[in-house]
C-alpha cells in the first residue's frame, strides 16, 4: 500500500509538465538603504519612489506584488536562487550583470555625483583626489568606476547605500560617489551644513551603462514582457511624470 502511494507520487511528479508560469503574485526585492528611491520608515515598511512606481506597475499588470528587503551584495545571487522574482532597486544595466540576469527597458537614468564637505573645490579629477579617501557602496557601478579610475585614492566600500554619506558626515571620508538624486536628498535632509554636491560626472557607458532597469531571471521571459508593457503604459498616460514629480525636481526618465 505504502509502496503504491510512493510510486504514485513519483509518477505524478515526473509527469507534471513545467508549465508557463501564471504570474499572479510577484515578489520584488529592494535594498532599502537608498532614499528617496527606497528606504525603511519607522514602522518598518519599505517606502520610496521606486516602491510607488512598482506599485503602479503592478496595478497595471493586475497582479499582487510583495516587497522584500535584501542586502545589495547578495541581491543578484538571491534572485538567481529564486528568493524573489524582480529586482527594482536602482540597478544599473551593465554587461557583467546581463550575463547573470536579464533587464527590462531603462526606466530612469541619472548621473553620478561626488559629495564632499562644504568647502571642497569643484575639481574631482583623479589627480586632484590623489590620496583622498572616497567611499561608496560595494558591488555598485560607482565602486567599479572608482576602482578603475581613481587608483591613487583610498577607496572604502560599505554594505549599505546610505552609509558612505553618513560616514562623510561623521568625517571619516573626504568624498563619496553616489547617485545625483540620492546625494542631493542627503545634502538637503541630513547633511545640511556639512556637505554639498561637489561635482557631477558623466555616465561613462562602459561603467554605468545606459540606465536603470528591472532585473529578472533569464528564463522568466513572460514576466519581462509583462513588465516592459506596463512601463510603456505608465509612460503613455503621464502617470510616470505624476509619481516622479512627487519626489524629484528634475526629469529622471532618461529617454
Amino acid at each position: 500500500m505504502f509502496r503504491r502511494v510512493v510510486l504514485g507520487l513519483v509518477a505524478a511528479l515526473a509527469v507534471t509538465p513545467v508549465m508557463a508560469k501564471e504570474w499572479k503574485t510577484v515578489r520584488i526585492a529592494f535594498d532599502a538603504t537608498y532614499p528617496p528611491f527606497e528606504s525603511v520608515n519607522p514602522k518598518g515598511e519599505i517606502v520610496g519612489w521606486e516602491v510607488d512606481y512598482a506599485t503602479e506597475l503592478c496595478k497595471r499588470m493586475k497582479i499582487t506584488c510583495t516587497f522584500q528587503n535584501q542586502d545589495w551584495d547578495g541581491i543578484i545571487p538571491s534572485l538567481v536562487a529564486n528568493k524573489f522574482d524582480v529586482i527594482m532597486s536602482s540597478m544599473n544595466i551593465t554587461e557583467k550583470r546581463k550575463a547573470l540576469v536579464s533587464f527590462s527597458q531603462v526606466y530612469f537614468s541619472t548621473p553620478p555625483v561626488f559629495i564632499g564637505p562644504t568647502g571642497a573645490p569643484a575639481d574631482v579629477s583623479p589627480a586632484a583626489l590623489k590620496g583622498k579617501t572616497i567611499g561608496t557602496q560595494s558591488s555598485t557601478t560607482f565602486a567599479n568606476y572608482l576602482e578603475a579610475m581613481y587608483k591613487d585614492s583610498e577607496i572604502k566600500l560599505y554594505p549599505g547605500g546610505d552609509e558612505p554619506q553618513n560616514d562623510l558626515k561623521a568625517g571619516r571620508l573626504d568624498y563619496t560617489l553616489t547617485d545625483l538624486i540620492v546625494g542631493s536628498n542627503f545634502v538637503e535632509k541630513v547633511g545640511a551644513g556639512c556637505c554639498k554636491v561637489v561635482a557631477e560626472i558623466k555616465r561613462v557607458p562602459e561603467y554605468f551603462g545606459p540606465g536603470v532597469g528591472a532585473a529578472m531571471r533569464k528564463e522568466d521571459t513572460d514576466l519581462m514582457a509583462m513588465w516592459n508593457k506596463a512601463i510603456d503604459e505608465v509612460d503613455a498616460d503621464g502617470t510616470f511624470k505624476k509619481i516622479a514629480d512627487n519626489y524629484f525636481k528634475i526629469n529622471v526618465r532618461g529617454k
Partner: protein
Amino acid sequence: MAFLHDLLGFVINTDLLAEYGWRLWAGLVMTAKVVSVSVCLGFLLAWPVSLARMSQHLVVSRLASGYIAMFRGTPLLCQLYLIYYGGGEFRPFFNEMGIWWFFRDAYYCCILAFTLNTAAYQAEILRGAIQSVPKGQVEAARALGMHWTAIMRHVVIPQALLVAIRPLGNELISVIKASALAAIVTLLDLMGQTRFVFARTFDFSVYLYCALIYLALTETTRRLVQAVEHRLSRHIRADAPQKVTATRPVARMVTGSTAHSSPGTP
C-alpha cells in the same frame, strides 16, 4: 548525477584563486594583525580588571563586575557598531580632545572593540584561575611573612597561569573567529576580502576557501596551545613518566609492593 556535478561546480573554482588569491592573503595578514594586537592588549587590561573584581572595596569590585557584565552580555557586533558609528557622532568632542584620528579609522575602532571585549572574558578566566589556587598556599606564604606582591609573583600567578592556559587558548580562538566582524565596518580583513571577491565574481567557492583558511588558523592555534600546555604541565600530569625502566616481576613479588625500583636509582 548532473545535479551533484552542478552542485559541486557551484562549490569549487580554481581560476578564482589565481586571480584573487593575493586578496585573500592580504586579508589574512590583516586578520593576524588585528587579532594579535587585540589579544595582547586585552591580556594586559584583563589583569587590573580581574584584580579589581576580586577586590574588597565594594565600589571597585562593582565597577569591574559591571564592565565584565556589559561586555560579556551584549553581542560584539553591537559593541563594534557603538564604537564605530557612535564614535562618529562624538566627532566634535573628539576633535577638541585631539583624538579624532583614532575613531576615524576602522582599524583602531575594531582593535578597541575587540580589546575591551576580550579583556572582559580574559578577566573572568584569570579570576577563575587565581581562585583555583588553594587558599592554604596563600595563608602559608603569608605566615612566612611574604608581602602581597611577592605572594602573587611567586606563589599564585605561576600556578594560576598554568590552569588558565587552556581557557585562554580557547579565548584566542574565539577572537580569531570574532575578528570576522571587522568586515562589517569596512575593514578589509580575511572575511572582508572574501565578501569583496564574492561581490565581484558571485562565485560561492570563495567562501569555502575562506572557511578553509580560518579552519587552518584555528586548528593550528588549538594544537599549539595544547602542546604548550602539555609541556608546561609535565611535572603534574597524571600520566607523567616515572623514573623507572624495566621492573622485573621477581623483584616485584619479593618486595611485595608496587613501588618502582630500578637498578640505577638510589
